[in-house]
């Protein structure tokens, strides 16, 4: 069986890490080295910072090519599923657990 060629520019599995960092005078924080090394972050990389209504702050590395293009191409590379049928199964399971 041929291995399908992966056009996948991002690291596949990330190590779950929790680190404590301290904010400096002008709001700078340092991303821990372990995280920088694992994700290949370099000086000059851009991030988007999202402040959610629940108070979470989410940092995302801004990649030059939008991953949505890759995502849509990836979805179209697979045989489609029957979403309505799968969803009916889920509804049954949710209602069964609720009883």
């Amino acid at each position: 069986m041929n291995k399908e060629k992966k056009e996948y520019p991002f690291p596949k599995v990330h190590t779950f890490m929790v680190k404590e960092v301290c904010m400096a005078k002008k709001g700078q924080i340092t991303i821990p080295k372990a995280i920088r090394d694992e994700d290949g972050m370099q000086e000059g990389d851009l991030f988007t910072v999202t402040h959610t209504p629940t108070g979470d702050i989410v940092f995302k590395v801004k990649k030059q090519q939008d991953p949505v293009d890759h995502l849509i191409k990836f979805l179209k590379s697979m045989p489609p599923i029957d979403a309505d049928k799968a969803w009916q199964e889920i509804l049954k399971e949710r209602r069964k657990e609720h009883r």
Partner: protein
Amino acid sequence: MLYCADTWFILKLFEQDAKALELLQNTKYGKDRIIIPLVVFTEGTKKLLQWGISQERINTFFDYIEASPHIILVFPNKDLATRTAHISLTFSLSIMDAFVATTAIMNNCEILLTKDSDYDLLKKKKYVKVQSW
């Protein structure tokens, strides 16, 4: 427009539904944004595995989701968990339904993408707007 996606929307993407893909495309330009509750990630993974999609492909899918600047995976905190319990009790929703609805409400989502009549009372009380097709 800020959307909250139930597992229904994830399945629609795997169906390559045109409208779902269009909405996804819109996030590229920030015209629309989508938040995905972590519980949807779990339930979606389970259902996709049951339907024969490999874990590797599911990982790839969610890695792209996480890399997208306008699609956010929302992790529950204690506050969200508490409110979920109240919404489940008040509206007689399953914990899963309540988690999804509460995530939408607490993140000020304009639309919840789902196809579930159990949300009708929440809709009626104007807690959340629901959209499906």
